[in-house]
């Protein structure tokens, strides 16, 4: 037996945290049981649901590609892409100037706060709701979708751009001020060059998300491939549904990959010797999404 350390004999008592954990778990269980009771869950529904779902997916194979091409589905998928592109452009054009007004290091508090709140409010409204509100005004069709996506993007892109502006090196700003330049010049020459790569990359990332959003907006008639999905589902024409899904997946994956590659090049070109910053960007997006600072 090692006698190196004089033992004070006292082993500490385990803290009472275990009790609190079980209490929390019980609370969760109660909440779940209460929720399930309100959901018209019956045993046979519960048991048959996975089977039904599997059945639907099984009947999608083989996908009816020929039929889909005849009906112009590829064109509709492309239409979704166009809608997403225009929406992202609208979002980009409006969000960038507003972001300058919202940034803490370049804008006074009385302008900054309302603009930031504006971004928050816009972000809180899902594109689908925006489209619902817009369709009575613009009529059905892709323009409603593009506008809905555009407005919503102003919120998200605005917030991301604001963070980018707040993160700049103040040196160039100081330099412009020292030469007696005006505020706008300071933004144009001191801030813009620093944030342009990151912001462009944010636009592309938003574009990727918006492609999915525009596909969804089609389901309420705002243009794009969503309407195809809905109409085929109504007729329970599952092979056609499968074709629509497959085409959408392919295009989305292609755009994701291309956009990721372009974003990497933009970031790499901007900071010599840096990595693509993908991890940093994802962390920024995560922080944005969750409000949690991940280390």
């Amino acid at each position, binding site marked *: 037996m090692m006698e190196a350390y004089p033992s004070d004999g006292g082993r500490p008592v385990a803290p009472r945290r275990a009790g609190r954990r079980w209490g929390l778990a019980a609370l969760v269980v109660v909440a*779940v049981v209460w929720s399930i009771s309100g959901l018209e869950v019956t045993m046979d529904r519960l048991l048959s649901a996975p089977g039904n779902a599997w059945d639907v997916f099984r009947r999608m194979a083989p996908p009816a590609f020929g039929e889909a091409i005849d009906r112009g589905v590829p064109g509709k998928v492309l239409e979704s892409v166009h809608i997403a592109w225009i929406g992202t452009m609208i979002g980009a054009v409006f969000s960038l100037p507003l972001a300058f007004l919202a940034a803490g290091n370049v804008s006074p508090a009385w302008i900054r706060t309302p603009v930031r709140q504006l971004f928050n409010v816009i972000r809180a409204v899902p594109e689908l709701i925006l489209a619902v509100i817009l369709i009575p005004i613009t009529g059905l069709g892709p323009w409603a979708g593009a506008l809905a996506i555009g407005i919503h993007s102003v919120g998200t892109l605005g917030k991301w751009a604001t963070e980018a502006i707040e993160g700049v090196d103040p040196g160039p700003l100081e330099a412009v001020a020292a030469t007696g330049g005006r505020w706008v010049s300071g933004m144009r020459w001191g801030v813009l060059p620093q944030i342009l790569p990151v912001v462009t990359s944010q636009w592309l990332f938003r574009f990727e998300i918006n492609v999915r959003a525009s596909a969804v907006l089609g389901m309420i008639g705002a243009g794009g491939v*969503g309407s195809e999905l809905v109409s085929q589902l109504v007729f329970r024409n599952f092979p056609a549904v499968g074709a629509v899904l497959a085409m959408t997946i392919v295009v989305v994956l292609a755009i994701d990959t291309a956009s990721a590659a372009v974003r990497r090049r933009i970031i790499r070109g901007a900071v010599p010797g840096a990595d693509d910053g993908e991890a940093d960007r994802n962390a920024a997006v995560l922080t944005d999404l969750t409000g*949690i600072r991940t280390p």
Partner: protein
Amino acid sequence: MSPPPETGRVDNRVASRKTTSSRPTPPRVRPRTWVVAAAVAAYTVAAGRTVGFNPSTFWQVWSNPLWEKFWPIPWDWVLDRHNVIEPLIETFQIAIVSTILGCGLALPVALAMSPLTSPNRVVLVVTRSIMNVGRAVPDLFWAKLLVTAVGIGAFAGSWALSVFSLAVMVKLFSETVDGADPRPLEAARAAGGRHMPVVRTGVLPTVLPEYVAYGLYVFELNIRASLVLGLVGAGGIGRVVEAQRQYFRFDRVLGVLVIVFVVVFVIEQVSVAIRKRLV
């Protein structure tokens, strides 16, 4: 030597007289940049035409008489139990079930997807591929498919939101797992542990606070998502919005939206407060 200048500025004439090298020519902007810029611009214009870009909408939105349909909000209808409160409760229940189900499944999936914690290469590649394809499908497509398969209503809504919760949670949580400190894992393996105990003791305590925080966030998202889910018939408060929208009762729609945003705001504040204490 010329007399010193009156202002405090440096006399550039002295400096330039000392220069002997010739000035370099400015670098030409690479032609590729112009080509790319032109292509992007052309595409934007073409896409704009296809989509029916119509700038007049921007002021039409303000002046349109349809705005009258949104106002005034019929509070007596909105605050009636059956119309809004009960569907909201249903939304809550859907959100709870979906969060638990989706996030519960997301834990093993995210662990399987990370090179740090995956049991073997096959599981890693297979899970990643499935998740990548699944993520390429827009979330509401999933919802619509599940509603078709499982039937309309809150039950289907829970399934759809569970899938959505799974996707979001996996994306968020796998980033955390990837970034976790791998060294305790090495120590656990060196002690002779099997795979699951190694992951459980070596990495789980480190990532669990983030997991719970993300879970709370996903719950919030699920409440918000039920709004749009109703548009595909999957129950909850969204059902009310869709029904009123179809009757063109936009004033009721606005009333419901106001209530929902208030509820979401409150939940968000509570959730942020809890999350701050966790992480």
